[in-house]
């Protein structure tokens, strides 16, 4: 039993961005846990001021490499909300497909490269032996699934990272029939592979149950945007109202600040979405994932991995449906007239709700903006869970406790690149 213990995890690996963890135990009690997001601030909410509304989304995409499509589309959404701009049905489909490409690629990155090694007892996917059939299968599937998401984004959005095609009022380039046929075949080819990783995360024995409020967007379907923000306590809020229910929590040692919802901790992300909205998954996903979905709603944070894997199937299924039933045509962007206005948007980024508010002047120049990213919203839970894990394992050796902390943080799938963009803080 540790009476005194100091743990320092410098630059946690197999996550997005940089984070350090400090834990201090004295007299058998955790004195403090500090989750220090060490990603240097890049001040995007300052930088957006003075930019035109048409240039702002591409700038904000640079907040994060892996979630860039979510930032791009959320910023576009906030601008369009401000300008009361309606986009075409085809544009909405192209945006959904852009998001799904990101979901497939980003979830696959997390599931196979970051989280699966913990399940397999490996340090890295690189350690798998391609000459052993069962390990070769993991390698083949990891890169095939991830690659399918990457190519869907390339085809629809122009690139998986900082995509050039989605713009305010519409879309710049449209997929042709032969390319659509190609990606359809690829999505159908990789779909069965995802069930292997679903099985792995269902059968995995990692358990960390905790009570918390889950919050996700609840729309007409299991969609990454559109609809109200719903909490497991039953509140339905518009994106504009949502921010008003968040309270900033300054974490002095971290380059990101946290949030509480109505004064309480909460969680966003795949686990929240599946807990709250699994009944709205694509019918094919519901049919083929029925046995896995019996595990939800779940309080086990490790089921965030399982939820991501199920969402990957949903993203594939809905993409297939959209691609099979849409004949893409050339169309112009909705006409835009600048005026002084303010708008908000919320989208479900892979890691949870992403919120944007923009305000612009009569010339369409942004003069104020707010961005809330998922990892900031999960930050308080992550810290509290580390404390709990350490206290529950004080009889174990330091390496074991450290590994448990790392494993749990990975299950949250934090994105530190996103978290350390700048928000205006009122220091008191």
């Amino acid at each position, binding site marked *: 039993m540790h009476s005194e213990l100091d743990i320092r995890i410098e630059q946690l690996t*197999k996550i997005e961005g940089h984070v350090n963890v400090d834990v201090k135990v004295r007299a058998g009690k955790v004195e403090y846990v500090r989750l220090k997001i060490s990603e240097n601030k890049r001040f995007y909410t300052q930088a957006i001021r003075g930019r035109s509304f048409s240039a702002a989304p591409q700038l904000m995409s640079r907040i994060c490499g892996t979630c860039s499509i979510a930032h791009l589309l959320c910023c576009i959404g906030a601008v369009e909300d401000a300008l009361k701009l309606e986009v075409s049905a085809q544009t909405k489909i192209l945006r959904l497909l852009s998001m799904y490409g990101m979901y497939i690629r980003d979830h696959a990155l997390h599931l196979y490269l970051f989280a699966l090694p913990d399940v397999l007892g490996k340090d890295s996917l690189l350690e798998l032996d391609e000459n052993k059939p069962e390990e070769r299968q993991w390698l083949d599937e990891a890169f095939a699934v991830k690659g399918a998401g990457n190519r869907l984004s390339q085809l629809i959005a122009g690139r998986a990272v900082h995509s050039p095609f989605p713009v305010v009022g519409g879309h710049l380039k449209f997929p042709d029939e032969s390319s659509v046929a190609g990606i359809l075949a690829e999505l159908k080819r990789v779909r069965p592979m995802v069930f292997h990783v679903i099985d792995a995360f269902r059968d995995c024995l990692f358990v960390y149950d905790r009570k918390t409020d889950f919050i996700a967007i609840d729309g007409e379907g299991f969609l990454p945007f559109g609809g109200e923000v719903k909490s497991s306590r039953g509140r339905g809020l518009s994106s504009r109202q949502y921010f008003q229910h968040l309270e900033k929590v300054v974490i002095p040692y971290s380059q990101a600040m946290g949030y509480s919802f109505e004064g309480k901790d909460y969680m966003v992300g795949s686990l929240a979405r599946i807990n709250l909205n699994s009944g709205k998954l694509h019918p094919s996903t519901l049919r083929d994932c029925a046995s896995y979905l019996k595990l939800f709603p779940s309080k086990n944070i490790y089921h965030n991995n399982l939820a991501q894997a199920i969402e990957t199937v949903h993203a594939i299924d809905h993409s297939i449906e959209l691609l099979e039933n849409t004949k893409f045509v050339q169309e112009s962007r909705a006409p835009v007239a600048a005026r002084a206005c303010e708008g908000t948007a919320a989208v479900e980024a892979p890691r949870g709700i992403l919120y944007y508010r923009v305000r612009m002047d009569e010339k369409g120049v942004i003069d104020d903006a707010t961005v809330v990213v998922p990892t900031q919203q999960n930050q308080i839970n992550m810290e509290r869970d580390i404390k709990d894990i350490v206290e529950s394992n004080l009889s174990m050796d330091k390496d074991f406790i450290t590994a448990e902390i790392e494993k749990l943080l990975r299950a949250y799938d934090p994105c530190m690149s996103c978290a350390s963009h700048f928000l205006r803080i009122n220091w008191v």
Partner: protein
Amino acid sequence: MQKKLRVGWFSFSCCEDSTILFVELMNERFLDWKRLIDFRHARVLQGRNFDDYLDVAFVEGAIATERDADELVRIRSRSKRLVAIGACACEGMPSGQRNEFDEEKKREIQFLVDRFRLCERVRKVSDIVVVDSLVPGCPMVEQAFLDVLDKYLMEFGVVHA
């Protein structure tokens, strides 16, 4: 025994967009790279990383703190070649956008610059160390990266023309 290129992949202040593309390039090349490359340091790929000598260090991101500058110097000192990856490493932007802020914005952020001991100016990699190759782009131009990698695989005798 196949000789391998000893490689490190490092990220400083940036959105890690090029890291994402690097990992996506693996989709079609994983087995080849595993045969040809010894990843001594790549946080995105593995938990166990080594601070030993490298044939090639790939460095993404701009340099925003003295601590990062010191780390970059250490990476350079143990690397035979160093490649700046992406716009933030090559040009310092967009991560260095605060360098161009007007006085009002600079005043707003100064307390955070002080609090987190950020440098007054964000710098590109070549402001601090000698850079052997540049892979520009935001995100990096994939073919440019592959060309640089091929060049060093040849130079270090891992593959032959």
